[in-house]
């Protein structure tokens, strides 16, 4: 694991990618920091951070697109997967290297509230809570990017997919969920669609139509029973489900001076989930 970590870190810090990533984050935050905090004298650093989350849409794909896709493409993964190291450790080593690169601009950002303190009173606790939220948001985005890099061998496809997924999860999700009516019948229809999709996925994985149909039928029956017995449960359920994918909302609490334990657990879960999915993707490729 340490070998992989060192190798990835060296790759990022001896090539352009790492520096472009760091510089881009620092430049954008620097501009907003100068404009909002220094020129307008706005004392909340969180305000700057809330304006710059869009940089993850560009920087995270840049950082993560090659992390696994390139190994698959260049066949260097053969060295990794035939070495006495488990896939889990390989993924973890790579992720920690990415986090380390990301920590470099985070540490520099940590100096900004101190700079701001030269000109007046700064709410340090609130500022650093916001930076923690910013770090967690970026870490979750990196985990998602890494997972997407594991499902393809083309860096470009990985980058485009990552931009798309991050855009939907960060900016679109609340908009989409407001499009769906919060009524029970709408939830019923949406969940029926989801059950059908799950059924097809199970069929695709197991090649067994009976089991897939059975599972889908059981879920659908349970759903209909819930709808007729206690339809209030389904009201707004789609919005709740979409809220799970809405990364940005969880970040907002950190911006409002709240050290949100829910948010903390949420981001860590997202990271663990996508790292796990990356491991499973690699394991599955070996079996097919």
């Amino acid at each position, binding site marked *: 694991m340490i070998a992989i970590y060192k190798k990835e870190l060296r790759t990022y810090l001896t090539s352009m990618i790492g520096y472009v990533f760091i510089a881009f984050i620092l430049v954008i935050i620097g501009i907003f920091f100068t404009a909002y905090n220094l020129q307008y004298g706005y004392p909340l650093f969180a305000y700057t951070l809330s304006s710059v989350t869009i940089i993850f849409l560009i920087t995270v794909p840049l950082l993560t697109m090659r992390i696994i896709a390139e190994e698959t493409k*260049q066949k*260097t993964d053969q060295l990794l997967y*035939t070495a*006495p190291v488990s896939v889990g450790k390989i993924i973890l080593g790579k992720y920690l290297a990415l986090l380390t690169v990301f920590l470099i601009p985070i540490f520099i950002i940590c100096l900004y509230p101190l700079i701001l303190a030269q000109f007046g009173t700064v709410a340090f606790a609130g500022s650093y809570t916001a930076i923690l939220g910013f770090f967690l948001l970026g870490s979750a985005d990196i985990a998602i990017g890494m997972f997407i890099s594991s499902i393809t061998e083309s860096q470009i496809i990985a980058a485009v997919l990552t931009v798309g997924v991050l855009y939907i999860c960060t900016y679109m999700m609340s908009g989409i969920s407001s499009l769906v009516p919060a009524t029970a019948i709408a939830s019923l229809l949406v969940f029926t669609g989801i059950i059908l999709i799950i059924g097809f996925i199970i069929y695709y994985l197991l090649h067994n139509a009976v089991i897939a149909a059975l599972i889908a039928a059981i879920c659908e029956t349970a759903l209909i029973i819930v709808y007729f017995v206690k339809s209030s449960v389904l009201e707004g359920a789609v919005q709740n489900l979409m809220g799970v994918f809405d990364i940005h909302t969880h970040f907002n609490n950190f911006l409002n001076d709240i050290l949100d334990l829910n948010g903390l657990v949420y981001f860590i879960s997202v990271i663990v989930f996508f790292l796990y999915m990356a491991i499973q993707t690699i394991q599955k490729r070996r079996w097919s």
Partner: protein
Amino acid sequence: MIEVKNLVKRYGDHTAVDNLSFTVEKGQIYGFLGPNGAGKTTTMNIMTGYIASTEGEVLINGHNILEEPEEAKKCIGYLPELPPLYMDMTVMEYLTFAAELKGIPKEKREQMMNEAIQITKIKDVKHRLIKNISKGYKQRVGLSQAILGFPEIIILDEPTVGLDPKQIIEIRDLIKDLAKKHTVILSSHILSEVSAVCDYVMIIAHGKLVASDTPENLSKLMLSANSLELTIRGSKEKIKSTLKKIPGIKVAEIHNSTEKDAFDVLIKTGQDVDIREELFYTFAKVQYPIIQMKLSNMSLEDVFLELTGEAAPQERKKQNILFRIRKSAGKKETEVIPDVILEYEASEEVIEKSDEKAAESVGKEKGEDE
């Protein structure tokens, strides 16, 4: 040391490896031989744990490659078909990374890397970026990665591809040296390489193990026959009738010779049957001089073509005779006296066929054979 049991690998409908079983003993060089797409690389990838098999299992020193991957992989050094090199690293950086990845303790690392560099002769390039070194050197860097830490089993997938003749000889010598302390498995579609290097050859075709033995035995195995090449001066009819008198001949072919008034005769006998003296005296009696007589064993190449051909096993004999006819197609007249006719209709007139009709005749014999 390595046990491979009933290995099956399917990609959708395509079966790449079909029920392959073999064991590998310590301290020998094993060669996987087979045409392109025979399943050599797939087998090696499964043995090293890079991909999983559909059915069957691989045991490395008693460790299942899927259930105890880390234990099993510690015993293996693997050079894949395409050396897994990071182009933006120097050779030293790459080897350091490989050593760390293999978990070689820090105090031993330097010494082991130096040994690997020395053995594969890459000292001159060790501080250069891998993307800037030649293909031959890249192959050697890949090889030094495989032998790094000196694992018990070294698996090399086509180790001499892309090397110049001098380098090929060097790599072969290196493999022979390695075999003193390690078990080496290599794959190749080059016959001379396998017969020159390996103690034991496994011929794979269509994902199946079609033969496995020492190169010498495999050559002997060929239709369990030795063959004799003769050039006899005299008339064709007489040569034919004389040949029929000699017992022990399985197949005899008569071709036109480059010598004037003479014919080339190719005779196949059973194993351990020596009819050379008999031939000499018989032809001496009829005053037909044997100008040339040569004993020739089947080369490994013949065995290879025989065993990996498209034909099903029961059709092999037919394939072989067809192959022989094709080879002599340049000459005007070829005569084939297949064994079945000599055996069952020895007293009758031998069927004469011209070259174009020979294939038909073979088909006919086939019917009689059954």
